[in-house]
């Protein structure tokens, strides 16, 4: 099929087949041993290191880097997995510039941190690739715990509970485990079906039973789970997407960015995915960037991210923003969507930020759009029988034999690494409650 970059409308095969392969390859290839050695040698082995403090899972980063530098990457991997069983995925998707690498003292020294994320991948990839699980289960306790949600929080919790000898049943609403690792991460960040490979490896701990296509209100109820288990951990994520609330939003070319990203992840042949020539992404976070960049990689000619506030308020990190700009995405800030016209175009109104919030200016403009992706945040789909604290469930122990963690729970940023930390910590708390 001839490539059709200039064709209007939403069409598949805009690029040559080789372009797809190149565009969706590993965007940050792994370090080779020499590169890893050079990178590891830059670590100062700080006292009470700021990078550890900055890591939501508190990985002992100076220790694992020293273990790499001294030629023992498997020991480094164990140091990482002890704190974060998703160390492999986190090495790929963590916004390290805001976390460990942002805190690295080398930033202060020369504005160039130790490549902690890349080194973590160097340490963890080989052990996962070999299918060698670093932990063994403790003796069976006879306790049973239900985990609702098979994303990073749920699986981190399940793994830690299984390690302690408990029997765990994971209920996952979708067909595959992984949550956002499987459905929400940009394809080029975890190519090669890494998310499933990592989960297969994680489950080798044993003692974890998986029930897919099973969710609260779909096959199981919270009351039944509580009745049949010694504890329940809720890690149901954020199932709903926020709406724009403007005329024309129901038009068929307007979609949630998370759905677009999920479909992209689940499509092996990217050339089969139709994409618009003119794409507009509304939002300012990592989801907006992932949707915009991948639109570009699928061959969209004009991709624009439009954010309602100033650029400094965008929750996408500088690195993410630069990634989008380098990919050729246009960024417009201080513009609020007001209407989606019948011809598909999105009308925006400029706003300025003043002392009492943003003020509309009355000045409008329209962007032609074959496709519009909404990326203005996700919301909790509150299960029946539960109370929300604000927009989310409470954090950690909800009372009785019920715990919650991950994106559905209050506290912490909505990051994979935060979800892992909350799942792990909930498991420790549940273990203490069951055994203590």
């Amino acid at each position, binding site marked *: 099929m001839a490539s059709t970059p200039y064709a209007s409308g939403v069409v598949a095969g805009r690029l040559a087949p080789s372009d797809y392969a190149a565009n969706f390859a590993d965007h940050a290839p792994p370090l080779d041993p020499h590169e890893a050695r050079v990178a590891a040698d830059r670590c*100062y082995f700080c*006292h009470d290191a700021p990078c550890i403090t900055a890591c939501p899972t508190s990985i002992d980063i100076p220790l694992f880097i020293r273990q790499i530098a001294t030629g023992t990457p498997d020991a480094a991997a164990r140091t990482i997995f002890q704190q974060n069983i998703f160390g492999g995925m986190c090495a790929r998707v963590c916004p390290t510039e805001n976390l460990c690498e942002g805190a690295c003292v080398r930033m202060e020294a020369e504005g160039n941190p130790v490549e902690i994320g890349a080194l973590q991948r160097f340490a963890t990839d080989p052990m996962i690739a070999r299918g060698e699980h670093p932990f063994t289960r403790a003796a069976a306790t006879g306790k049973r715990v239900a985990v609702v949600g098979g994303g990073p929080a749920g699986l981190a919790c399940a793994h830690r509970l299984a390690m302690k000898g408990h029997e765990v049943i994971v209920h996952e609403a979708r067909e595959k485990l992984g949550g956002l690792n499987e459905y929400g991460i940009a394809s080029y960040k975890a190519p090669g079906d890494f998310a499933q490979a990592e989960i297969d490896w994680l489950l080798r701990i044993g003692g974890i039973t998986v029930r897919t296509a099973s969710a609260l209100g779909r096959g199981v109820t919270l009351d039944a789970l509580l009745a049949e288990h010694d504890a329940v951990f809720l890690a149901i994520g954020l199932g709903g997407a926020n709406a724009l609330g403007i005329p024309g939003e129901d038009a068929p070319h307007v979609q949630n960015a998370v759905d677009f990203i999920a479909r992209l992840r689940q499509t092996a042949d990217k050339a089969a995915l139709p994409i618009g020539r003119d794409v507009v992404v509304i939002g300012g976070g990592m989801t907006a960037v992932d949707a915009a960049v991948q639109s570009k990689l699928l061959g969209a000619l004009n991709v624009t991210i439009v954010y309602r506030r100033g650029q400094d308020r965008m929750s996408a990190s500088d690195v993410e923003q630069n990634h989008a700009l380098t990919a050729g995405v246009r960024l417009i800030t201080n513009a609020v969507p007001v209407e989606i016209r019948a011809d598909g175009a999105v009308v925006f109104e400029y706003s300025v930020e003043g002392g009492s919030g943003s003020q509309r200016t009355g000045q409008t403009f329209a962007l032609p759009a074959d496709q519009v992706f909404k990326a203005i945040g996700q919301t909790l789909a509150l299960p029946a029988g539960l109370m929300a604290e604000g927009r989310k469930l409470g954090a950690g122990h909800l009372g009785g034999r019920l715990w919650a963690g991950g994106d559905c729970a209050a506290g912490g940023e909505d990051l994979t690494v935060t979800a892992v930390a909350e799942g792990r910590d909930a498991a420790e708390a549940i273990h203490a409650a069951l055994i203590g």
Partner: protein
Amino acid sequence: MADLSTTFIGIRSPNPFWLASAPPTDKEYNVRRAYEAGWGGVVWKTLGSEGPPVVNVNGPRYGVIHGADRRVLGINNIELITDRPLEVNLREIKSVKRDWKDRALVISLMVPCDEDSWKDILRRIEDTEADGVELNFGCPHGMAERGMGSAVGQVPEYIEMVTRWVKQYSRMPCIVKLTPNITDIRKPAEAAKRGGADAVSLINTVNSITSVDLDNFAPEPTIDGKGTHGGYCGPAVKPIALNMVAEIARSAATRGLPISGIGGVTTWRDAAEFMALGAGNVQVCTAAMTYGFKVVQEMISGLSQYMDEKGFASTADLVGRAVPNVTDWQFLNLNYVTKAQINQDLCISCGRCYAACEDTSHQAIAMSPDRVFTVKDEECVACNLCLDVCPVENCITMRELPKGTVDPRTGTVVGDYANWTTHPNNPAAKAAAE
């Protein structure tokens, strides 16, 4: 621009940077290229007696110690003296010297410890027009097992005897190269002087095993599953060499004996340090083996800039300038009080100073919850460890307490110069007073 030309025991060279007797100076091809790169002189790799040349191992000859990023800190070797026929070496030396009259060319020698052997080799090198000889009493491996090299250098009487023979049978200036594998470097230096040596050069390599292969359980470099001790050199041995040079330079018995400084000279600064401690010139090997002959160009430009900045017209202004300041511990001023201070603008908050002080020194650095590190003057003994481990240059410095101020650690007033010889805690001082 400063004049770098030197005259060392009558041997002139355009700069004080000579290549030491070693693999880089093994043959005409190398030595010509070294001169072209700018080296002021060369000590030709050690010649042995006439006859079948020695043989080397056919496996690895070198072991290494790496710093961060595989930077070479030290190399050890088990190579022997030249393994090429004597006549070939002599022909090449003559050929090179004819074309490079302004450069120093010294021949290193090692023959069995008997008068005839030395008389013979000296006669054979006579018409090469080389500028001098260096007696290799230093190599600690291989040849030492045959009663040569460091086996001679470890016995002052032998040094004196052989040196005497050399001076008797040769008109050439004679440098005696010393081994560091002894307890007191002054003894072999004194012996060389008694034998009539014109100069000493030091240090030769340090006896060493650089590493152990943890799969084959053998020292490295490993030859068919076995290893042997070799000679260690490079930046790692520089502190050992500097001390030995200084000991000879300041000892009453050897003061004024010209010294050619060897041991880890890698930059102009290293060379300047050796010269300040009394070396008339320096010899280099590991830096050339690591970076190639071109490295001398930085040494030349660096030393030249430094001498200009200091207003030194010639290298003689630098040589020995630090010797008067090398003293015994007992003469150090015990009333010189300093305190570490941390420049908060330069500090990157790594906390290495804190870990070092808290865990292994005097608990004299405070750490705030927001990672600000400050020195507790009342605990600081000024040991310098914080400064040594700090990754940022000049972030931690030592501040001298002025005379008359109170040291918050001891509560005593900083007084005039006073040393251990008169200190009340010194039993010998009391005895003298009584």
